[in-house]
């Protein structure tokens, strides 16, 4: 019997930080590895590869996803934004820029390994619910593991941007 051999590589085309990307990728490669190893976008970090730590969080078609739980081939046709794109200044009406400033001023990062993902996770909340309470901010960030800070300065920074954005 002639069983067709499963494809080990596929062609994909998608947008990363506004740039068109066309590549042949191994079907088993996850999106985080593709972005890091093939495109050199090393701001997306890999902390657990099982979807718990949140360090690989990025934006796919407007929502945050775990890049370690998504295959690169699944990104075909998608609009991907990583920290490198979000950090360019005016992304999302400068929400990320505001967050970066507050994180810096309040030392809401130490080793920085969780930081790019933490910013993108926080930006989603600021955009959707700038009136979020402190408890809601803590809950929203609870998929992003930070081992260095006590989370408090991160919560302070996000709260500050929320307050300035919601006018409260």
């Amino acid at each position, binding site marked *: 019997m002639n069983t067709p051999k499963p494809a080990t590589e596929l062609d994909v085309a998608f947008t990363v930080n506004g740039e068109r990307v066309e590549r042949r990728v191994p079907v088993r490669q996850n999106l985080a590895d593709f972005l890091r190893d093939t495109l050199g976008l090393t*701001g997306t970090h890999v902390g657990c590869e099982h979807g718990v730590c949140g360090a690989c969080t990025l934006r796919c078609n407007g929502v945050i996803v775990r890049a370690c739980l998504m295959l690169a081939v699944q990104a075909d046709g998608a609009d991907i934004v990583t920290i*490198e794109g979000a950090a360019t200044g005016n992304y999302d009406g400068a929400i990320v820029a505001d967050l970066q400033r507050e994180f*810096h001023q309040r030392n809401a990062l130490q080793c920085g390994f969780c930081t790019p993902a933490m910013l993108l996770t926080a930006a989603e909340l600021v955009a959707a619910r700038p009136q979020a309470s402190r408890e809601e901010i803590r809950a929203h960030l609870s998929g992003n593991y930070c081992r260095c800070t006590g989370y408090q300065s991160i919560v302070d920074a996000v709260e500050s941007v929320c307050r300035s954005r919601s006018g409260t």
Partner: protein
Amino acid sequence: MSAPDRSGNTTIGAALPRTNALRLLSGRGQYVDDLNPPRCLHAAVLRSPYAHARIASLDVAAAAIAPGVVRVLTGRDVAAMCDPYVGVLKHVPGMQSAAQLPLAVDRACWQGEPVALVAATTRAEAEDALALIEIEWEELPVVTDAETALHPDTPVIHPELGGNLCFERVVTEGDVAAAFAQAAHVVEAEFITSRHTAATLEPRTILADFNAADGQLTVWHSTQVPYMMQWIIARHFRLAETQVRVIAPDVGGGFGMKIHIYGDEMAAVAASLLLGRPVKFVADRLESFVGDFHARGHRVRARMALSKDGDILGVEADDLYGIGPYSGYPRGSANEGLQVSNLVCAAYRRGAYRAVSRAVFQNKAMYGQYRAVGHPVACLVSEGLMDLAAAKLGIDPAEFRRRHYLSPESYPLKLAGGPVLEKLSQHEALETLLQMMDYAGLRTEQKKLRTQGIHRGIGLASFVENSNPSAATYGQGGVSIASQDSCTLKLTATGGVVAASSITECGQGGYAVIQQVVAAVCGVPFAQVKVVIGDTETTPVGGGVWGSRGTGICGEAALQAGKALKANILAFVARLQESEASLYDIRDGQVIRAQSGEEVMTLEAVARTAYFRTDQVPKDFQPELTVTRSYAQKTYNGAYTNGIQASYVEVDTETGFIKLLGHWVVDDCGTVINPLLVDEQIRGACVQGIGAALFEQCVYSPEGQLMNGSLMDYLVPMAGEMPDIEVGHTCTPTATSELGAKGAGEAGTAGASAAVLNATNDALGPFGGVVSEIPVTPERILRALGRLS
């Protein structure tokens, strides 16, 4: 010593944002795994699935010819080029361990021990090839219970050692037997702290690149200690240190876990040496759980003798802990036990004292130093006893502590066991804390809510903590780890200063500390001080960061270098002006007249004259605008700090769940360089201690299998569970340096677990249940309440 000359500059003590945080915020940090040099190979490591097993046969032939594979290394391959290591401290009497190699040769002694390494063109191909390695195992009996490890019928892991004991230490002072014989009251408990792990978000990572043409090995390493690694790699691979350069770029968390030698990393270095090309190894998360050093798995039986009036007559503690199958290298696995036996009730007039600490070998993951080494265990025991005693005597826990703190006249105080407490601020810390948290108000609230069936508890935990360690920690034990640090400053041609420091950085703020100290002391604008760290080729020799030493030791070296550079600049200007150096000062990058503030020369003009217009420099004068100064703690074994924490919790007596309502810390780290950094360091450290108190535990089966080795199963604290943590300070600068800074990085971890445990027990008080084991899981609470049997 006199107060540091800060010349009206204010960057010491200023809450300045960190310069080197900006690139991290933009995703432009550079961690080791972000580097991919040309021809880089990727390593994957085969690990033992058994806790103890003999390798009956090993066949790597199929793996060696798998797609993408360049080389497979076995234990024998690496043994041929790497000298074995033994992790003992020579100044710990009787300490022993067995020789260890990077990859297991004949047998594996813990689940996860590295056995073989595959280097391939991609990590995926390397992992594919691992599956083709044929290995036959013969299981051996395991030692997994510390309590029975020393029994005569328990198998001995290393027969040549004659038993499973790594070391035993006894510390005594006074007549403990008499103290207990006279006691009107005795309180006692068995305290258990669970083995847990650092769980840095960035896993261990190494990239070694050996250039056979010039014999130079460059190693990019996620490490806290580049110089230690340089020495180790050179020594064990038989290279000259001048052949080895270790670079620690951005490091994604260390917490003491990245100061040890790991077989998989050493094997990656071996692969690069053999292949003459870059080889990278990144531990994945599952490998991290079984590969990283664990810590804190102690059982301490302790008791306290009290007089009728509530004086402490004596304290006794018996500490037992199970390490891995080998003592860690190169630092040994003794330090937890040394600190526990030193520090039980060390914050108090503890009367007669006897503490025994024993470490035993087990077939579990390697074990050793992790943030606040031993202190959280000593604190849990001490503060647990203090609360039991206060309850027995019917005295408020805060008042009971107040009565028993060391008296302010007793300093410097040498503790039995060796440590010297230079000067503590316990009474002031306690009063500050009680005020911050409104202790009286919370007690009233607690009482009122009891009547409504709401059970809240308040827990206090005083701690003393070593920092700025001297050579007593490692050097005296024959371990080649620097206890001195240095800073080299150079004035740039445009009047800035470049500081090369032996401090390293995992986010604590090492860069910022050096920048702020140098700016303050030299009178150079903060933004014009650039700091170079983490590279054995471009920084002076030093110990790196661990043991709360970075700010206190490296910061002092920077201060002394700053003073020297400033003196050299002023001597030069004075000579040019044909005047006296003492008449000048430097402020905001300008040399000024000290009296009038009148500007004399910019630092740029000074540098230009020295470097480009040597014709204007007097023939008999050579300005020295590059200086190096060093510092080591030599007065005591370390600069002991102190502090106190409080936790306020609510316990649901139906479910056993704990809600953290508040947490307060008062810490004394002497001179604070940057309060923004110190406070969040303390909070982060507290959260690690809270994690230990409530969640974290490496659960092993009796067969030595780690049962919860993933982030799905091993719980770490997330934002949602943590309370806001209020931080206050007392300030007792150490007189052993001019800067006066003591450690701050471990204080939070030292006391947090004890505060949470005491708060929980305070909540449980009316029910008569006591929990003395962490993590305090709902199950343990329900058992204490008698709701589960």
